[in-house]
Structures are given as structure tokens and as C-alpha cells.
């Protein structure tokens, strides 16, 4: 009997620890499928973040390094400079990339480091228990913005993809979502293109993935997917932000 669906080789057998309805698992799988399809698993070195995806080194079936909070682009830079022939990716959340690691991502992008960053934006800190992130929407209630995020005191949700797309070193940035099948398919295409551009040596590549956090949003998984569609996408428009020739 033909096998029509199986776990990608680029994922280990370790069970994910993610909450029900969290989309980290989907994005992990998409990356792994792309690694399988491009046949790069043996040549890929991944960098895991601090945050909910801190154990990503247990899940991706390739050589991995665990970075300090926000420093994954610097760690990836060190790896890529030593092994320019390998494929290097970082997997980072919004607190990691847009807050504590803002300098590292800006300068890795600006140097045109030939790495791929998968940026999970779920508008909240997940692992530490639902604190306000730089990407938290105005009015959104978190444990550290209990009255809703206010622009006057907490500033505005930051659009990292648009900001980084202004940098000359960037080869490709696209924002995608994983709230339904159609968008999941589009997300996979974007991830594949980012890896292909890296392999072609075009420069820095990033895919921002709008994701869910049912646990800290206080919603059911289905409500969370609706919230991505109805609340996040209007503020964080999907699409290609930059694509080099």
C-alpha cells in the first residue's frame, strides 16, 4: 500500500510539548517538509530561540544550536561564517526577535547574512505566561497590559517585516499566516522560497508567520484562528515585503 502521508525525515520522533491549538507544530512541520523536499537536512544547522520554541533543538532532525534570548541571528552569523556552504536558519518568536533581539536581527539583515529566519508572531510572550510583546495589538489585554495595550504608555505594535524590508542586505521577506489550509500552503511556499534564496546566496531571508497562542489569549483553538484572521491580519498585512531580483 502506498504511503500518502508521513512525518518528515527532518523532524525527530520526539513529541511536541506545545499547547493544544498552538501553531508552532504546524510551522515546525512546514520547515521540515521544505528541508526534506530540498534535500538539505544533512547540510542544515538550525538555531533555536528562548521562548516556547526553546526545545526546537529536540524536534528538528539536524545539527542544532540553542541561542541566548534574542541572540539567534548573531549565533547563526557565527555558524554561517564558519560554514558558508551550509544552510543556516533561526526560529524565533516575537519577544525574542522584536524586543530583546532587535539589534541582532536588524544587523544580521543589514549585513545580508545568508541565513533564513522564521519569525513567529503571536502578539504575546507565551512561555513566561502571557506578557505584552512588542507585537501585542493596541487594546490587547495581557498580564503586563491588564487594561489593554495603550499607545501613549506602551507604544505601538511593531511591524518587523516592513521595517527590515527597508534594508539593502535583505533578499526576501514575506509575511504569511497559518490560520487555514490555504494560508498554510502559502506559508510553506514562502518558507521554501526563503531557503532557496539563501542557498542561491542572495542575502538575508525571513518569513514572518502570524500564529496563535490560545492558552495566553484565553481562547479556544478555533477562536484563536478567527482572531488571527479578524484582528491580526488587518494590522499585519500578508504578502511579500521585499524580494530581490
Amino acid at each position, binding site marked *: 500500500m502506498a504511503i500518502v502521508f508521513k512525518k518528515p525525515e527532518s523532524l525527530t520522533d520526539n513529541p511536541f510539548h506545545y499547547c493544544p491549538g498552538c501553531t508552532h507544530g504546524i510551522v515546525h512541520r512546514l520547515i521540515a517538509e521544505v528541508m526534506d523536499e530540498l534535500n538539505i537536512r544533512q547540510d542544515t544547522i538550525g538555531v533555536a530561540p528562548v521562548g516556547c520554541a526553546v526545545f526546537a533543538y529536540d524536534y528538528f532532525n539536524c545539527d542544532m544550536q540553542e541561542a541566548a534570548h534574542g*541572540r539567534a541571528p548573531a*549565533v547563526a552569523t557565527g555558524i554561517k561564517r564558519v560554514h558558508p556552504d551550509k544552510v543556516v536558519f533561526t526560529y524565533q518568536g516575537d519577544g525574542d526577535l522584536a524586543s530583546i533581539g532587535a539589534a541582532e536581527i536588524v544587523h544580521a539583515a543589514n549585513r545580508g547574512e545568508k541565513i533564513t529566519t522564521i519569525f513567529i508572531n503571536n502578539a504575546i510572550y507565551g512561555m513566561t505566561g502571557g506578557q505584552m510583546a512588542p507585537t501585542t495589538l493596541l487594546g490587547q489585554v495581557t498580564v503586563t497590559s491588564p487594561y489593554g495595550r495603550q499607545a501613549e504608555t506602551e507604544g505601538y505594535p511593531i511591524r518587523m517585516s516592513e521595517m527590515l524590508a527597508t534594508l539593502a542586505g535583505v533578499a526576501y521577506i514575506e509575511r504569511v499566516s497559518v490560520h487555514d489550509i490555504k494560508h498554510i500552503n502559502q506559508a510553506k511556499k514562502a518558507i521554501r522560497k526563503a531557503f532557496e534564496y539563501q542557498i542561491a546566496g542572495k542575502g538575508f531571508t525571513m518569513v514572518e508567520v502570524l500564529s496563535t497562542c490560545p492558552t495566553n489569549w484565553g481562547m479556544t483553538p478555533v477562536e484563536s484562528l478567527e482572531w488571527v484572521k479578524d484582528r491580526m491580519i488587518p494590522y499585519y498585512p500578508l504578502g511579500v515585503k521585499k524580494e530581490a531580483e
Partner: protein
Amino acid sequence: MSKVLMKGNEAIAEAAIQAGCRYFFGYPITPQNEIPAYMAKRLPMVGGCFLQAESEVAAINMVYGAAGAGARVMTSSSSPGISLKQEGISYIAGAELPCLIVNIVRGGPGLGGIQPAQSDYFQAVKGGGHGDYHLIVLAPSTIQEMVDLVQEGFDIADQYRNPVMILGDGMLGQMMEPVEFKERKPRQLPPKDWATTGWKGDRPRAVINSLFIDPQVLEEHVQRIYKKYEAIKANETKVECYNCEDAEIIVSAYGTTARIVRSVIELAAKEGIKVGLIRPITLWPFPADTFSSWVERDHVKAFLTVEMSMGQMVEDVTLSVGGRKPSYFYGRTGGMVPNPFDILDEIKKIRGGNR
């Protein structure tokens, strides 16, 4: 090979290249700027990579990545910059990655000054970053020794999978001396089969990591690292004893200060005062046993530690002396360098019972 006249900072850089270091990540700060400048020029000539990072924080994390990828890699900075690197240093120690970190110390705290100091001793030997760990800290007192220890330091780091720090100061970094880049007998080093080089399935999957969420596993991890430290203490402790036979007063000093103490020994001899020097070359591991071996001698009346700080190494000296003889301290700080005559005065005060 014949001797060449070189500035300390440039000698460090050349020694690193000759030791096979091909990757340097750093950020500008005085008084160590000649190291990155030299690396920026020389590394591309030998197929290496120099990268000026956006911050010291980024630089040390680039070192983490490159070391984890199996490269011989270094960074250099000076006191405020080394403070910024402490996060990464703790992760590097936790993930057991070999690398060389150079601190050309300047006066502190805060922005402090840019003149030579030894006030980062505690930070270097007692931790600096969070958690249970040690750096191996090497303290050269001449530029020749700096060259030798840089080359040795890379091997020590690789042998034990532990970061090594060269603790210099602004004086050693900026002065010029003749140096020789000697042919070295390299150590037998273990293969870096743990490095992330791309996994073909011919070894276990490489994971560079310092996270152990199960406390029992973390305790075992730290205990295993501390077993390694016992081997380092046994094999790598280095110290120089000078003129200690018959010495009434043994002065303890490292780096630049030890050079000044040599002059003091000559001055004292002219006045018939017998002074010796114990010069720790490894600050961690600290040569405590050497102090113990001299402390019981009848001719030794007291110990005096001299530092360019308000007194940091003196705590380790006093611990090693263990109350068996008096242990005194004299120091200048903030970038001020002790004067040999002032040190001699201190020695006379100790002899005369005026301390």
C-alpha cells in the same frame, strides 16, 4: 625565528593567527583597538573571517556560534565591553565551548577610564556571568608571555572544552617589546566530533546547548564540568616564584604590577631587605599550594599583595596564607600605576611593625 618589536595588542592578534585562529568577532573599545584592526587586515590574508559586530553582546554570541560550529575563534574587549559579554560567556561555559576571550583591562567601575587597571580580577576569576562555572584565566606579564599564553590558551580551551581568558591591562596592550613566535609543540587534542557541521548520520546529532530543564540532569551536568575543573587545577596551574629563598617579605602580584615588583626587589636588596615575588600566571586555577609551601618557612615574615585595584587578588592570597602569616595589601586604582618607591615604603612599614 628571530625577534620582532611589537605592540602588545598586535602581538596578541598575530599569536592568535599563528595558533590557527581564523575567526574574530569584536566591537571597538579602548585600549584594545589594535587587536581588531590587526585582525581585520590579517585574517582575510589567511582565509579567515573578521567581523565587527553591532555590539559586544552580538560579538560574544557570534563566538558561541562559531565555536559551536567547530572553529578556533576569539574575541577581545576591555572592561565595560567584557561586562556586556558576560551573558554569552556564561552560555559558552554552560555549553562547554572552547574559545579565547581577551580582556585588556581599564579602570572602572562604570565607564571608568581608559588607563591600565587590574580591577576586573573578581569578574574574571569568580564568575562574572550567572551560574556555576569558571573561566581559565591567564595573566601574562610580558609581551613574550602574552604571545606564548595566547597560543597555549587556544589549546587549553580545546582540550577541556572551556573558555579561556587572557587578562591583560592597558599597559601590556599598548607597550612594545621584542617577541619571538616560537615553534610550538601542539598538544594532542580531542576531535571536535560534538560540533555542528551538518549531520550525515556518522555521529550522534550535534546539539550545542546549555538548557537542562530537569534539575537532576542540570546538577549532573554542572558536577561533570566541575570534575573537569579538578583536572584543570591539577594540570594547568602555573606560577613563578622569584627570589623567594630567604625572603622576609613575599610580595604577590600579576601582570604589569609584577614587573614593578621586580624593580622593588632590586631596590630593597640595595637596602639589605630580602623580598621575594610569587607571580600567579594562572589566576584561575589559583596557585594556592605555592603560597602554602612558602608560608611555613621561618624566614618568611609576611605577605604583601600589590594590585592595580582596591584589593581583589589579595582575598585569594589571604585564603591561601590561611592566617599562618600576616597578609597585607597595597594598591592604586582608577588607572594609576603603583610606584616602586611607594611599594618599598609599604614593605618597610611592614618590617617596622607600622602596618
